[in-house]
């Protein structure tokens, strides 16, 4: 699915030090290597992540992937596929002595289980779980739905989701940037942030799936605006529905759809007109989205008597006192503290041009709102995590301004060399600190500045 013609003002990419027509130099050689590397970058990053997964679980660094929040996302799979009971009663009786904890509680009045973790991750991984279940029945393996085969079958789906997200992001980047810039951007996004952590250490959390779906949205939205065929409208609606199904607050990211291409107030009026003239496509997309979301609503209705509920009963938002500075910069969980390479993306917002520029307003608005919502959450750290996991979902969006900054740096050889050194150091630091978390050296929450200093790059 490619845009028939870009609706955005397009400019040809300016020659840069990383363009093939640049003088023969170290940078031209690097550009050639990176251009060739683009073909295999997604597979290479996926294999590297798979290696990390193997180190964690074969090395005994963590128990099975189904733990903590992952249990809540996973439990629907044995409930429906093994026990045929989406109410969670039979799986609770079988696995857990009739009780479920950690985000799953009985609703007052109906006394039925309500799970604060929605069904999206389970929906996306159900085919693999079903295949493992069939194989377990055939082989005589445990068929309780929680054996290591089920857990790692579903856990490894995170690597597939990462690869799918990176491939879609690569195609999005290639609409505006050279193969070399796309390659470097994908490497930075995967290894310079906590994205790899959420495809390995906590693979059944929602974040890598949200990342992939939001990259899919970035890919599909321009296609829909170019030509809102029935098929494209259905795909757009399905992706939108899945984004909500995986994590309900991520409905915020659907603002990317109406805000795409908006740069001035005049664009808002013309966009409203466009939406009105394309009402069939809009309704088709909304219908597809509702079909995808309906099973979740039906579960809420069956458990509580209401179609829409807040499942976070003892947790809350404090929109009047958002911890903005903490979620962005604190040593405790600041996204820029733990993934400093993303500061380059912030600078890149002012450098976006061409096909990427059409996304600028949408990305700024959505990322800013998302940061505000995260900062307003009562547990703004979002519990035990590496870096701030709330921002993992936004990494596809931040890749576009990041690529813009890289492209600008690449046009100036001295700046490019300095940028390469700094970014390389930031990636190395991110990987080292991620490994420190895996080894239990760096705490996963409430880190203080004294602790950080004492533990900085310390290994056994």
């Amino acid at each position, binding site marked *: 699915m490619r845009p028939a013609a870009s609706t955005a003002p397009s400019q040809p990419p300016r020659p840069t030090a990383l363009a093939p027509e640049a003088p023969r130099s170290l940078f031209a050689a690097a550009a050639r290597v990176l251009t060739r590397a683009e073909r295999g970058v997604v597979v290479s990053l996926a294999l590297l992540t798979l290696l990390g997964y193997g180190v964690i679980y074969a090395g005994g660094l963590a128990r099975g992937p189904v733990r903590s929040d992952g249990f809540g996302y996973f439990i629907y799979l044995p409930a429906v596929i093994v026990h045929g009971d989406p109410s969670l009663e039979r799986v609770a*009786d*079988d*696995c*857990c*002595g*009739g*009780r479920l*904890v*950690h985000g799953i509680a009985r609703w007052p009045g109906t006394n039925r289980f309500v799970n604060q973790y929605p069904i999206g991750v389970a929906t996306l991984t159900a085919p693999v779980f079903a295949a493992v279940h069939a*194989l377990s029945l*055939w*082989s*005589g*393996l*445990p068929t*309780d739905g*929680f*054996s*290591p085969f089920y857990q790692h079958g579903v856990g490894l789906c995170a690597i597939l989701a990462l690869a799918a997200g990176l491939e879609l992001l690569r195609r999005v980047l290639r609409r505006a940037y050279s193969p070399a810039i796309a390659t470097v951007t994908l490497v930075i996004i995967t290894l310079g942030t906590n994205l790899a952590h959420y495809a390995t250490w906590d693979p059944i959390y929602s974040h890598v799936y949200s990342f992939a779906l939001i990259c899919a949205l970035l890919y599909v939205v321009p296609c829909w605006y170019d030509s809102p065929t029935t098929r494209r409208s259905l795909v757009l609606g399905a992706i939108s529905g899945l984004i909500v199904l995986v994590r309900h607050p991520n409905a915020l990211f659907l603002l990317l759809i109406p805000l795409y291409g908006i740069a001035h107030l005049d664009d808002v009026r013309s966009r409203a007109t466009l939406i009105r003239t394309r009402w069939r496509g809009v309704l088709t997309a909304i219908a597809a989205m509702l079909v995808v979301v309906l099973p979740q609503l039906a579960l809420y209705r069956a458990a509580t008597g209401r179609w829409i509920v807040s499942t976070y009963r003892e947790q809350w938002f404090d929109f009047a006192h958002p911890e903005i500075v903490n979620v962005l910069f604190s040593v405790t969980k600041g996204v820029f503290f733990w993934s400093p390479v993303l500061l380059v993306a912030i600078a890149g917002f002012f450098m976006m041009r061409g096909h990427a520029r059409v996304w600028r307003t949408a990305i700024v608005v959505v990322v800013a709102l998302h940061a505000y919502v995260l900062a307003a959450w009562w547990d703004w750290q979002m519990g035990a995590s590496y870096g701030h996991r709330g921002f993992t979902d936004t990494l596809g969006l931040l890749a576009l301004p990041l690529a813009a900054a890289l492209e600008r740096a690449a046009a100036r050889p001295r700046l490019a060399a300095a940028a390469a050194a700094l970014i390389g150091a930031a990636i190395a630091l991110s990987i080292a600190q991620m490994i420190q978390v895996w080894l239990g050296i760096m705490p996963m929450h409430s880190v203080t500045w004294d602790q950080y200093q004492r533990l900085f790059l310390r290994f056994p």
Partner: protein
Amino acid sequence: MARPGRFWQWLIAALALAALLAYLRDPPWLGGVTSGLSAWTRDAGGTPFRWTTGHATFYVPAGVRDLIIPLRAIHARRGHLPLTVRVEVDGRPAHALALDDERWHEVHVPIGAAAAKRRHRRIELRVNRTHGRFYRGVQVGELKMAE
């Protein structure tokens, strides 16, 4: 000659899948597989044990005729209801007992004839109550087997 080439690719893939399924029908490594059991640890007296969840599975060699499973329940009595453990062999009920104290109990499970010829017999423990955030059921000690 794309079509004949494709046919052979599909045939090889189907044969490979059939061979894999035949191998997985009764894999020799099944004896080491467990589910619903924690890592081994030791109690204050040095006795090794593993925690079950509400449903634990392990395997014994097909030649085993008698199995002794040491079991202990911590917090056995909650609200005056004993903790019960049901033992199943290859999915069929084999034994059930109620634990209402915190002593070790050795449960004798006779392993009858198998319905199908396989290298291993599947033993499952189903516990009616769990406690804690890790859904701990009962403690299982080292098995004793007689052929």
